[in-house]
């Protein structure tokens, strides 16, 4: 747990995010039909999902650890990671919708990828509702940990497996070219990978801050 109190990766996150803010808008991008300049959205939209996945992954990891050890801190990490993840989830959805308005013509165009993203969003909202429904602390921690572990694979199936099987307009699905495969040149990679790393660290940072606040609140309440 020493990692969350170190500062090198927080500085790195800030530098990388600032770098992508500037380089993402200024560096040249390949000219592709339909996409044109909207391709720059890949620097901002995809890293949101990366950060969301990492934070949800941390949450599942600590839910498993909670079930194994019953230590309250692990439950706090799990819930604050989910809270942060939901925020990044919403940002990912919104940035995707903004891009879809320009690339597809509609904010919401009944695309399988959009629909399953919305369903997976409900899945995690249900997690928060479930937490509110239980009063007793330990029972709440245990049951929500179980639900969290149950929900994570379903989220993965919804976001990354089902849309691939149907005809989605989203890049990377249904035979559409993905940004990662051959549309992205080396110039773009120089922004894209730092952007992912930067936003992932930023997401983890937000989650650790929220966790530390909760820890302090818990201590005050117990005195």
């Amino acid at each position, binding site marked *: 747990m020493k990692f969350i109190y170190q500062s090198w990766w927080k500085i790195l996150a800030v530098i990388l995010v600032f770098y992508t803010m500037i380089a993402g808008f200024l560096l040249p991008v390949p000219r592709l039909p339909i996409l044109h300049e909207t391709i720059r959205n890949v620097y901002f939209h995809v890293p949101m999902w990366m950060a969301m996945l990492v934070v949800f992954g941390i949450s599942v990891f600590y839910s498993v650890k909670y079930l194994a050890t019953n230590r309250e801190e692990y439950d706090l990490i799990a819930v604050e990671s989910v809270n942060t993840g939901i925020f990044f989830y919403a940002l990912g959805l919104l940035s995707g919708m903004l891009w879809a308005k320009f690339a597809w013509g509609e904010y919401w165009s009944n695309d399988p990828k959009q629909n399953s993203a919305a369903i997976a969003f*409900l899945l995690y909202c249900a997690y928060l509702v479930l937490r509110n429904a239980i009063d007793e602390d330990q029972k709440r921690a*245990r*049951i929500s940990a179980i639900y969290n572990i149950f929900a994570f694979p379903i989220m993965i*199936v919804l976001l990354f497996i089902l849309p691939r099987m149907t005809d989605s307009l989203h890049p990377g699905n249904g035979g559409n070219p993905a940004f990662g495969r051959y549309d992205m040149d080396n110039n773009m990679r120089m922004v894209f990978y730092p952007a992912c790393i930067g936003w992932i660290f930023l997401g983890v940072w937000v989650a650790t801050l929220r966790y530390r606040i909760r820890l302090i609140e818990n201590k005050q309440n117990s005195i």
Partner: protein
Amino acid sequence: MNLLRQTVALLKKEIILEWRSKYAFNGVLLYIASTVFVCYIAFNLTPNFKSSSGYPLVWNVLFWIIILFAAVNAIAKSFLQESKSRLLYYYTIASPQAILLSKTIYNALLMSLLSFLALLVYMVFFTNTIGDTLWYFLVVLAGGITFSTVFTMVSAIAAKAGNNGTLMAVLSFPVILPVIMLLVKISKSAMDGIDRSLTYGNFGVLAAINVIVIAISLILFPYLWRD
């Protein structure tokens, strides 16, 4: 083998209990029949509904929605109905996996029977437009079984969180939506009489979802029942 023996014994107990009271079965069957009848009356308020072009589409989607709500009602009972002391008694004599497996198998049996009967009732009221009837029945059977595997675990969670019907719906719908999407797609192609070999892949996905859900439930349930 101990697990198998316990599961079979518990399953027998579930079936005998149900056979004596026939509460879940009759209740849900009546629920399905009345829902179908309500839908029948409501849709036929519009003249020429049966000859309209969207009729097969509505037929298919409406059937799955009715089955979905019937399944939530039927399976929510499986854990909500058990009293605390009775659950405690089970846990002293059987392993948690056996309890979950017996409930899942019992629910799968109940749901396959119910969805089969529901389809028959539904076909009486709404004129049948199915192209490949045998395949459609098979899809309905697969759907009933998948609903029961998913809902059994969710109802176990909901029952622990204070016997709350709203919670059951909130927790189960996002989980079941991908399944519903798949089922509506396969059953529509069975309805249109599309070649069976084209839907094999979708059946594979359904089977995979079942296996994953059962595996996760078996791992997680032992943590859930301890109080």
